[in-house]
Structures are given as C-alpha cells and as structure tokens.
C-alpha cells in the first residue's frame, strides 16, 4: 500500500457494496482512499492510493480524524468525524464536504446503520455524554439521546434491527437504545446479570472500565464489548444478559475508541480485537483464543474485515496499515495467520529460511 500517512491510523473502513476501496483516517487530519481489490490478484501486495485528503485542504479536518465510514449503499459518499467536533459528509468524486454537522464536543465515534431503509441517521458518540443522531436527509442533528453520565466513546447499530443502537461510554455503561423512543435507553447492560450485589440494582455497569469498543455480531444476535478493564464481554441482544463467555484478559491500553470487528461468512465466527500492538483473534461463541497477529509496532487502533477476501485490514499508531490474509492451505476455518502488509509488501517467499550456521562452528 502506498505509504501516504505520516501519523497514526485511527480508522479504516472498506466499502460494503464492492469491497474495492479502503478508507483510512489519520491522527493528523488526513484521509486516504486506497484501491485494494487489484492487489489481491498480484504477487506483490502493493495498494495504490486513489485519493488523499490532506489536512491543509480547506474542507478537511484540522484535528485527528477519529472515524471514517463509507456510505453503506455506494462509494459516492463517506462520512468522517473528528476531534474538532464536526461530522462531515464527503462527496468522494470531488473530495468536497457536502454537509458539516457541528456538535458540542469531540466526536469519538460515529456509525451509520448498514441496512437501514427507513431512516438515515448517523449515531455519533460525543464527548459531552450525549449521542447525537444526525439525519442526513434533513441535515440536522437535533435528535439527542441522553443517558450516559460521561463521555460516550463507542456506538454500534444493530444489523438486525435498524432502530436498535448500542453505545458504550466512560461511565462503564453500555446502553441499548431504540431510537424511536425519545425518553431514554431501553436497557443498561449489567455485567453481573442482576446478581452483583445491592449496588448494581441501581447502576448497572457493563465493564469495570471505559467501554471503548463495541460491535454487534453480523447476525445481530450478540453484542461484543471491549473495555479498558481488559475484558471482552459478549451479550445476548435479545435478553440483554451477559453470556459470561470467558475470553480471558485482553490487554487494552488504548483510551480512545477502538474498532473491533467480527468475521462474517466463516465457519466459526471469530472476533479480531486490537490489543496493544497485537491483534488477538478469539472465537466468539466459545471465547477460545485462536491466534495473535503481531506486526504492528505501536497500538493498533482499528481493524476491519473484508468479506470477499476474508482478509483483515488493521491500522495502528505506527502509521502502517497491515493486511492479514488467511492461510490458504487451511481452508475452512479462517485464521489470518500469514501476514501481509499494506505498506510496501512482497508476498512471502519461503526460500531464504535455511539456517546459515557458518563453518567455524563445525570445528568447535
């Protein structure tokens, strides 16, 4: 992948319609679009940058771009949210901002429902403890969800129910919302399932630390949350109960929103969880640790799963976007074992691995 970024990658996203373009945003306000489809058919994995948005541009974000996301239906539009309190809607072809939502605080995360037909709302996790729903149709951000007591760090729309929204915040809570219900959240997830003692009856916490990663399973049946208490939790979205799957400790040094992803279309659902400079791979249902993908040299901020190629793309603070391909000889279960990188990569050649013990050891 053509090296365009000069600072840490905050977010990567692949367009859902074609799976051809990779969107990435950096902590210095830049956004880049790479063509990734071509690379899969070549020996050397080198992605070309299609377009870049520098910070110096008039329209671009002046501060770290925390989240970027393609418009779910086509690649003509994408959304970006930044620490500079704005959510911008971009026209891809002209690379211009067509809509600019000014919010009250830093935007840690935003998400658009992937399969919403009835509405066109973007949920933004804002610093000021509220979730703003920006309506792309009207261009207003008047719909506010109040419920968190501290900053909201992560949001996720349910793929099954287009009105169901899950948010996680610094108050350790994960709230489930029905966006049609204006009064409040429908549920606050409780890590102890109501057996945690007297205190938990009033304040239900999902984690003992900030909830900075949240993701629905592709089917929408489960919700995976990731907290700074180094825990992953899997929730049943229907009952709102903790499934108590034990993932063990997953080191989570990041204090920003972390984008974790779950595989689709594989025999076993696996979750890719950025953990420090590695990406841990877990089986979702059993909580079994499958693999550790180590290749980054600094905190990994995001990873995203490519449906067609069953590859994951990960971005980290070391300015690299790495592509992890599944090992082809082990078909069936997808374990992204061999590493392929986005930056300046060659496919793995297996020949040079012979040991080179020099002759002088023979004598000794």
């Amino acid at each position, binding site marked *: 992948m053509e*090296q365009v970024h000069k600072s840490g990658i905050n977010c990567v996203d692949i367009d859902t319609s074609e799976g051809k373009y990779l969107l990435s945003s950096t902590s210095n306000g830049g956004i880049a679009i790479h063509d990734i489809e071509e690379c899969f058919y070549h020996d050397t994995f080198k992605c070309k940058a299609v377009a870049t948005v520098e910070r110096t541009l008039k329209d671009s974000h002046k501060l770290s771009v925390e989240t970027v996301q393609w418009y779910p239906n086509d690649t003509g539009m994408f959304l970006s949210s930044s620490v500079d309190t704005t959510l911008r809607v971009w026209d891809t072809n002209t690379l211009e901002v067509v809509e600019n939502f000014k919010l009250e605080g830093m935007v840690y995360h935003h998400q658009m429902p992937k399969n919403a037909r009835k509405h066109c709302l973007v949920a933004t996790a804002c610093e000021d403890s509220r979730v703003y729903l920006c309506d792309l149709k009207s261009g207003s951000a008047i719909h506010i969800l109040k419920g968190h007591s501290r900053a909201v760090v992560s949001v996720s729309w349910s793929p099954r129910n287009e009105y169901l929204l899950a948010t996680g915040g610094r108050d350790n809570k994960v709230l489930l919302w029905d966006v049609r219900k204006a009064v409040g959240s429908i549920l606050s997830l409780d890590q102890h399932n109501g057996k945690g003692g007297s205190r938990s009856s009033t304040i239900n916490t999902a984690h003992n630390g900030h909830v900075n990663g949240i993701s629905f399973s592709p089917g929408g049946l489960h919700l995976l949350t990731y907290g700074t208490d180094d825990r992953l939790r899997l929730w049943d979205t229907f009952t709102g109960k903790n499934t108590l799957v034990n993932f063990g400790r997953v080191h989570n040094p990041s204090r920003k929103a972390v984008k974790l992803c779950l595989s689709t279309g594989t025999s076993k659902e696996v979750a890719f969880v950025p953990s420090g*400079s590695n990406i841990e791979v877990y089986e979702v249902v059993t909580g079994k640790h499958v693999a550790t993908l*180590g*290749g*980054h*040299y*600094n905190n990994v901020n995001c990873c995203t799963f490519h449906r067609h190629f069953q590859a994951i793309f990960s971005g980290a603070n*070391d*300015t*690299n976007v*790495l592509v992890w391909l599944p090992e082809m000889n082990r078909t069936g279960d997808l374990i992204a074992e061999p*590493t*392929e*990188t986005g*930056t*300046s*990569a*060659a496919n*793995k*050649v297996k*020949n*040079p*691995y*012979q*040991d*080179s*013990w*020099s002759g*002088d*050891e023979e004598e*000794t």
Partner: protein
Amino acid sequence: MESAAELSLVEELGDIVGNLTTSGDPSLNNDLMKKLKAICKKSDVYVKHAYHLVLTQLKKKHAEIRLSSFQIINELFLRSHTFREMLLIDFQIFLELTVETDCKQPLPPPKPVAKILKDKVLEAIDIWNRKFGPHYKKLDLGYSYLKRVKNVEFNARSAQTQQSQERERRKRNIVNGQIIRVENEMAEMISEMKLCATEIENCFKLLLPHPDDYEVHCGDEHACTSSKFKQVTNKDVTKSRDVAEVAEVPCENQAIESEMDSKITDTNQENIGKVDDNEKLLSDHGLATRSYQLTIRFDRTGPEIKETVDNSIVLNTVQEFHKELTHKHLPMINKWLSVLSKGEGMQRKIEQLIDLKRTLEAAKTKFLELKIRPLVDDARTVSTQGKADSGSDDEDDDSEEFEDVPEKEGMQLVIPPSERAEYGLEPLSTSHQSPAESSSQVITKESSFLEQFGADPQELGDPTSRATALFQVKDQLLNTDSSSVPNENTKAITDEKRQKLLAQAPVVPFDMDLYFWGDPSAETHKVVKTYLDNNWASKEHEGEYLIGDQKDARSSRMVTFAGSFEPVKWSCRAPLPSGKLCPRRDRVKCPFHGKIVPRDETGSPVSTAGVVPDPVSAPDGSSTSTNDEQNSDSSATDWKEIQLEVEAATGLDLGGKNKRKRRSHSKTSGKKESKSSGLTDLKKGQKTARNRLEKIVLNKKAMKRVADQMDAIATKRCKDKFANQFNYSLH
C-alpha cells in the same frame, strides 16, 4: 537418550548464557560463544531454549547485561532461522528493550553502555534488514517503523563516512593545487639556487683553494710550494680540521723542519758509527732515516680569512650569497618540502630537493666555519663605502673621524662617581690621599683638570669664568663623594643590589610618611581643644591633643601589597559526561573534580610513577577510600587462597571457616557471584558533585537546624507584630 543429553546441554546452555551476559565485558568471550553456537547448532530445541534464556537476560535492568545479550542475539540471529522467527515474534519487545522505542521504558543505567547498546542494535538491525528484510516481513516493518516513526538515521553512519571522504577529497585537491604551485616555483627557482650554490662554491675556491688544485698547476714541487706559500700567506690562511683537506702547506713546512731534525739525528748516528746500508741508501736519496717522527700540528681554530683589498669583493659576494641562502632559498626549500611531503608520488622530487638543500646547507656551514676577519680599516672603509653610495665624500670624512655622541641634558659637569669611568676619568680617590700629597699636587692637578675640560687655569680667580665654575663643582663633588662613596668596587655591588631591590620594591605615592622619613624629631600636629560651648569645662578637657594616633601613623603607612596576578595556566581537564574535558581553570582545586592533577588528552589522570597515591592527588577525595578497600579486599582474598592451600597441605584448621562456608554457599548461587564480578554496580552511589553537595546540604540534621531557625524567626516576627494584641496573644 536425547532427552538426557538435552538436559545436560540445556544446563550448560544456561550456564554459558549466564556467564556471557553477566561478564560485563563490552565484547563476548569467544570460547564461550563458540560453545554456545556448537550447542545451538545441534537442534532447534536448543536454539529455542537459548532464545528464552537470552530474552530473560535481556529484560534485566542493566545495560551491560542487555548489551551482552544483544550480542548473543546478533550472533544467533545471523545463523538460525528458528531464532530469527522467534525473535521477530517478540520484535516489539526486543526493540523496546534495546532501542527504547517506548519512551516510558528508558534504557537502564549505566548510561554510556546503554548508548553503545542502542547504537549497536541500530547498526545490527540495519544489517539484518539488508540481509533478511525481504523475507521476514516483520523485520522489514520494524525497520521502516524505526526509520519513519522513530526517525532513526540508519544512513547516518554511511553519510558520515561519505562526508569524511568528501573532506578528504577536498583536502587532497588543495594539496594537489599546492604541489602544482610548488612545482612551478621549483621550475623557476631551482636553476637559480643551483647557480647560487655553484657560485658560492667558486667563491670558496677562490678564497680557499682546494689542496688538489695545488698539484695540478705545477710540476716542480719546491717552486710550487713556495709560490703557494706566498699565495697562502698572502691570504693569511691557516688550514686545519679536515684530514682530507690537510693542507700541503704546513705539511711541507713541517717536512722541511723534520728533515733538518733528522739530519741532526743522522749525524749523531754517524758519530756512533752504526750505519746501515739501507740507511745509507736512504741518505743517498736525501733522507736520513726511516723512522721519522712527523708531527703535524693543525690549527684547531679553523680557517681564518683576513679580508684584504684583493679578496674583499669575493668576500662580499660570498656574504651576499650567504644572506640569500639563509633568508630566501633555505626557507623556500623547507616550505616546498613540507608541501611535497603531503602529496603522494613525489619521492623523486623530494630527493632532488633534499640534495639541493644539502648542498646549500653545506655551503652555508662552510661559510660559517670560515672566520672572516675584517681588517679594521678595511672594514671601515668597506662599511663606509657601503654607506657612502648615497652620501658625499665630506660626510664620509666626518663620520670617519668623529663618532656621534648623543647630547647630554642638564649639568654635564657633575659627573656621578659611578659614571666616571664612562667619561674616561680616573676614579676619585681623594679620601685615601694624604693631605700633604694632596696639597703639593693640588695645583697641578687642578690645572690639569681644568685643562681637561678646556678651561684656562689662569682664569681661576675670575668668578665669572668657566674655570671657577668647574672648580666649585669639583669641590662639591669631592665633598659628597668622600662621605658616601668609599670604594668603587663595593659601590658596584651595592648598585647591583639596589637595582634588584628596586625592581621588587613597590612604588607608593608620596605621602606624609615619606615627608617625615627618618626624621624622629618631626613634630606631630597638635590640636588645642577649647570647649567654648561647655560651661563646666574642667581642666583636663583643655590642652593640646594629638589627633588620634597620629604620631605612629605619621611614620608608618599601610600598603596593601597583594603581589601581581598570575593567570592560571592550566585547566582541570577532568572528563565530563558530555565527552568534553572540564574547562575550569582553578589554581589548586576544581570545585567539581577535586584537586587538579596532570591528565593526558583523554582526561584520565597521569599517575606519576614512584609517587605514593596520596589522598589529595586522587581525582576524587572519596575514591581513595574505595582504593584502600579494594587493596584490603584483594589482600584478603590472597590470604584466603593461601590459607586454603596451607590447610590442604597441612591438614590444620587455620580458622576463618565461617567465611569459607559463606563463600561456598555463594558459589552455589554462582550467578550472583559472577554478576558481582563483572558488571558495574548500579546501586553504588554515583560520585557526582551533586551527590556530594546533596549529602551536605540535604543532610537531615542540617535541614532540621535550618527549619528550626526559620520557625524561630517566624514566631519571633509574629510575637513582635501581634504580641500586644489580645486576640493573637491567646494563640
């Protein structure tokens, strides 16, 4: 079987790694390393084990251990694929531990070693990447990460070498330019120099013909010698020194004399009547005997040439050439040589130049050896002729006869006795003269004295005449001289002494003490006190008073004499952590590095041999104690060893078992012991100036004392301000 072998080997592996990493040496022990490699070569199992061992060592917080561990890693990394893969899995950790990629985990002390470690690791990673980068993705990534994110300059080293090469090239260009210039100069000047050399040689030949030349001209020896004699005597040449150049002339001279002698001896022999046939034969040839004793006396003073009208021109030219040689040619040649020696392939030219230089120098020494004695008159004329080129003949005459004397100012006639000799006067000795003698001679003396100064003795009675004035002056002189100057000789000595003292004595401005110098009866100022405003003035209040201690003050004066300031010629030059040397210039002791001792260019103190290391000469005052400890330690260990041997031999218990037990105990935990042996102790307090001062300033007692003092001041102030206020005084 394999597992058993494995176990022992694994143990050995652990020992080797432990020993290697805790040695504290900047480089690895070759033998141990070979053993390690041999073990690792057997199977990947050992490689893995070694990897884990080394990694655990690497995680220890000591830069020296890390450095050694890294060196092992480097060796294995270059050889084993398994090791490479294993290391690359933990490459982030490796980087964190060795090149401090994580700013929260700085490299452990000691700092200089940590710096070396970092440099070496970066260098090694560069090499690794070049060698394995394309095949190990993570290595490549790590490399690019270091390069892009951490901004590590991998090419710094190569850039440095390039820079130095560039500098070298520029230097060479400059040198080449110089050489070309020198060559051009040489082409111009060498012929001139050679000409000069030959000319000067010819001049020498003219002045001092070579003995070989004598024989060439004339066949008849007697004629030749006589003529040569004349020639030589004309020029007043006495030859000497060089045996090869032994002049025929004195030899001939001697020979003639000796002939005469021998004839005499011959006649004696004939008188005795024992005449040999052979001797007869000899005598027939005009030689009396074979056993001549020729004594040739050489004049050791060297050739001397008296300048005459004949050879003055030649001498002048020689002098000119000499001047040219010393002031122009030789320095020039020296310069050329220094330039040419920088260049390459100039051997031939340098040789040529050296030859030339040698000839020129030979000529120069020859000239210096010649003692040219200018005839006084001749020299004068020559010198004046030289001058007279611009002036007229009249002036010449004047200058020949009179010397310019600088005019004296003031009273010329009063000649201080010390300078009488200069004026050509006889020293005064009137004090020793008897009065009778003086009375008889007075008149004649006076008249002669007056005549000497060009005054008429007849005018003596006339008070306006010069003679009277002279006479008065003389009288005055005599009076003073008789009292103060007893002897010329002692006077000279005292003068010398006086000069010395004067040179030392401080100059003070004129003041009252000098005014009253040596006057004991000097009056002191007295003040009459009157108490007019005081009605009840008693008697004692009236009278004369000295002002203060004026009497003493009058005769003495305070002079602050601090001596002259001598600038300090040396600096401390103790090595600083920055790599420079301490530039402080203190006279005796640097406040940071203790007493100033001679140091070499790296700043380590030069221990003067044979000098017992006294506490002051050590760079740090505190280091001596450690020295002593070490000494005592070493002696103790020596004694222990001896004791062990003695005990083993005699079977006696010499005591000190306890210690031995502890030693053996510590041997079981061998790692600890080896660690204490090689590595620098981190816990040992660093001897910095800061620590030293800290110990004093932040001493608990001192702190407490200061705090108490401050408290006391505060309470006192409080009391002063508010003590008389009711509501505050309650508190």
